[in-house]
């Protein structure tokens, strides 16, 4: 595929912390990690999805003034950013593995409509739904 979405970004409170979370706890891989002065372009990707990168961006200079950066940090920490969805083959299995690695779950796996889903947050407050793929 040559056209389509390549990068979708999240705001995170600390890029090192986010990197450790998405790589060590969720099993993502680092795609790009480059710095230019204060700015750090950091993206990770799901091992099964080489065409899509998830950007882990920190509010702050040079993109944001101090007040805007503060507002963004507050919004993320309040869990007010849009929901994210991670599809897995086995929700209960993924839940057990992730929980053992210290992921903060907000909802245990629940079976609804023959499909299991759970919920967790990243350290910054971004909320994810963990949904089992229909077989």
């Amino acid at each position: 595929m040559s056209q389509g979405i390549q990068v979708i970004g999240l705001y995170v409170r600390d890029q090192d912390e986010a990197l450790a979370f998405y790589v060590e706890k969720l099993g993502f891989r680092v795609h790009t990690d480059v710095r230019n002065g204060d700015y750090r372009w950091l993206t990770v990707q799901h091992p099964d999805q080489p065409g899509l990168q998830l950007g882990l961006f920190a509010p702050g200079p040079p993109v944001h003034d101090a007040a805007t950066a503060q507002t963004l940090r507050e919004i993320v920490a309040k869990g007010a950013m849009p929901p994210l969805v991670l599809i897995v083959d086995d929700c209960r299995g993924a839940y057990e593995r992730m929980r053992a690695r210290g992921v903060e779950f907000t909802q245990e796996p629940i079976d609804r409509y023959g499909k299991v889903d759970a919920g967790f947050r990243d350290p910054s407050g971004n909320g994810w739904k963990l949904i089992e793929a229909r077989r």
Partner: protein
Amino acid sequence: MGSPDTPDPRSERASQDPELLRRLLRAKDRMDAASHEHWPVRRLARVSRVSEAHFARSFKQAFGVPPHRYLLTRRIERAVALLGETELAITEIAFRTGWGSLGTFGRIFRDITGESPGEVRARARATLQDPGRVPACVLSAAHRPDLRIAVSEKRRRAADVITRPKRKEFP
């Protein structure tokens, strides 16, 4: 996290420490996950690792409603879902959603929704029996976070309602 440019806390919408907000969010998440449980401020403050006085004030500032009010709203949302999707008696629904007394449940329910539990159930039933509305109903149920009932069971119950029209529906 604080910076010299942090807006003046006396200004109309004072900023809050993101680190504190993240811990307040944890208390809110815990109420969402188990709204039927008892959540005194002491317990919530412990989850957020702040003092009780600080918790209540900060939570309201962060989420727009006091923590207790937030909990009641979540409980009523669950009760509305159970009224529409199950045939549990209203007393049972009150009990399952965390109320110790049916009177309090009814009063808060009306206070929040403007209707009585019986009225909400009657409307949900009417919607359920209109075949054109079923997909939207199923869709909204699928997105409701607190639904704890399997689709097969839901269909069976829905079928019961439809195939037994003489059945007494409202307790």
